[in-house]
């Protein structure tokens, strides 16, 4: 056990990190990979099961065509070649999360190989990550460890198994070793997982929710002495389940590896688990023997041999990919690189595009989402898209402002009402009585009152110091609780002082 860590700057001074990322994506097909059971999240335990996914004797798997198509679309979007022929294999292990005692997976014949994904780093630099493979497999069941203090295996008295998730289609996407990241390794890792998530989301083949486990990341990392080119022993960190954690796991492992190597010890080739609360990793499987899965071709499933026509048909279904879309929106909305990056980082791109599609001018749509709504999201500690307001509702508020029915202050109150669950913008305007007062009679009375209250200001205006009118406008706005049309008020003040 090495207790101390090496300072990150010191690590990159003396070591080169070698990074590898394995990402599991749960597909959003209606049914499982090899049987017709549903895949929905959160059902009562063991209610989405059948003889096949329970591994009962005599049951036979049949491949879900939609899952194969999703896998090929992911492969194509990652610029991979689609293998013209491949088999599933059995990965044998004795662990109760798979009732069959094996997991059906593609092993040495993955459906997609040799691709790449260009990822944008924080400063706008494009970094190309080479993809080794994407292959199909099935998810495992969920274990609940009972007894023991931590809910972990160690100390548990027994385990309870729910097989609803067993057999849900998974795609595992594996990068080649990523060299040359240096001090940017943590950033590259996060940027890659972000880009992959956005890509898969655009394909519509998965929910890619890291918080719900429909996207999971394993981080492989090794260090070699700067410039030596000697490949170090790697550790594999599992359980990295947020974008921030991906970055932190890489950083932590770099500092931990360096400490072990500096102490003249050897890195243990092992699986480690990321600890969300402390941003550290702890040793998982320390095995005296190597893992031994005794893979062999699955005899119950026939080979997958996609024809060139099928592959081309699927290529034709690829949507506009995220980076192409970003470039297009950047041009359409006239954004600088930095402005675009801020929108992407804020998760505002989709929302702004939808608001524009609902009829709002791009500038105003952008300003609402990145300013007032972003503040509201921050205050509630949720992401922008989790705010209880739709792009169409935002577009409606923008239209009400453009039509002179609301001013900006009132518009924010309408948005507050929508966020508070008071209904559509028009209903909030009605219920809260938020329409701009442009009735001259009422405004003139308020203006006269304000002028009478501040005779010295009134005199200045009469003397031609029009700028002094601001004070009166402010008083009138206050008197009308912000509901006056400020422009009209100013006109009336000049009129009344003329």
């Amino acid at each position: 056990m090495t207790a101390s860590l090496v300072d990150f700057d010191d690590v990159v001074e003396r070591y080169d990190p070698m990074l590898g990322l394995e990402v599991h994506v749960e597909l959003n097909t209606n049914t499982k990979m090899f049987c017709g059971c549903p895949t929905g999240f959160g059902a009562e335990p063991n209610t989405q099961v059948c003889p096949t996914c329970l591994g009962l004797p005599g049951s036979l798997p049949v491949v879900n065509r939609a899952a194969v198509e999703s896998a090929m679309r992911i492969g194509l979007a990652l610029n991979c070649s689609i293998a013209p022929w491949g088999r599933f294999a059995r990965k044998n292990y004795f662990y109760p999360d798979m009732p069959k005692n094996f997991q059906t997976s593609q092993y040495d014949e993955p459906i997609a190989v040799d691709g790449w994904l260009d990822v944008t780093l924080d400063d706008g630099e494009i970094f190309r990550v080479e993809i080794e493979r994407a292959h199909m497999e099935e998810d495992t069941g969920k274990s609940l460890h009972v007894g023991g203090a931590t809910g972990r295996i160690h100390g548990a008295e027994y385990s309870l198994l729910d097989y609803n998730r067993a057999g849900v289609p998974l795609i595992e996407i594996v990068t080649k070793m990523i060299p040359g990241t240096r001090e940017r390794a943590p950033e590259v890792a996060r940027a890659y997982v972000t880009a992959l998530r956005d890509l898969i989301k655009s394909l519509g083949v998965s929910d890619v929710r890291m918080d719900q486990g429909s996207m999971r990341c394993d981080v492989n990392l090794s260090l070699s002495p700067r410039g030596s080119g000697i490949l170090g022993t790697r550790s594999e960190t599992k359980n990295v389940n947020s974008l921030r954690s991906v970055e932190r796991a890489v950083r932590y492992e770099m500092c931990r590896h360096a400490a072990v190597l500096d102490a003249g010890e050897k890195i243990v080739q092992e699986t480690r688990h990321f600890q969300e609360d402390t941003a550290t990793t702890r040793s998982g499987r320390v095995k005296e023997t190597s893992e031994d899965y005794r893979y062999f071709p699955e005899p119950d499933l026939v080979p997958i041999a996609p024809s060139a026509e099928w592959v081309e048909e699927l290529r034709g279904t690829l949507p506009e990919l995220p980076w192409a879309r970003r470039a297009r929106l950047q041009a359409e909305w006239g954004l600088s690189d930095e402005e675009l990056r801020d929108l992407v980082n804020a998760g505002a791109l989709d929302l702004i595009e939808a608001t524009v599609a609902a009829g709002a001018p791009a500038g105003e749509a952008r300003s609402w989402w990145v300013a007032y709504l972003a503040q509201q999201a921050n205050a509630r500690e949720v992401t922008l898209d989790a705010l209880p307001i739709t792009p169409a509702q935002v577009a409606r508020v923008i239209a009400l402002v453009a039509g002179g029915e609301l001013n900006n202050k009132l518009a924010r109150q309408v948005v507050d009402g929508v966020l508070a669950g008071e209904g559509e913008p028009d209903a909030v305007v009605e219920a809260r009585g938020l329409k701009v007062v442009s009735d001259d009679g009422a405004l003139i009375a308020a203006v006269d009152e304000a002028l009478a209250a501040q005779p010295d200001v009134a005199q200045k205006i009469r003397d031609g110091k029009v700028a002094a009118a601001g004070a009166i406008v402010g008083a009138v706005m206050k008197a009308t609780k912000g509901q006056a049309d400020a422009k009209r008020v100013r006109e009336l003040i000049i009129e009344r002082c003329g």
Partner: protein
Amino acid sequence: MGTRLDVPTAGRAPGVAAPVIHLLEGPLSAAITRDEVAHLARLARLAVTDAELDVFAGQLDVILGSVARVGEVAADDIPPTSHAVPLENVYRPDELRPGLSQEQALSGAPASEDGRFRVPQILGEEA
């Protein structure tokens, strides 16, 4: 080493596939060792006594030897195959099929609790 039964995978780089095991390629005269039997027993979570190691090593040897005789008839012009029937691309549509109720699913389980299968504590590994 005798007949290749186990293919260690932990040492490979991510994505670099270890070879799929081909029992039929093993040398015909290979003898399975006690150590190999012990290793397999450990992977299968089976408690095997010292005496049983010798018994099983002998028995497994006979089985592997019998299977390996296939290699005697396999000629260079016959490619290895994993399937008896020359079929490809058999799929089902992504449509729900009725499955089992929770009660049915658990009916064959030796023990269950809260709608879940109950299994003995799992040692030494973590998923």
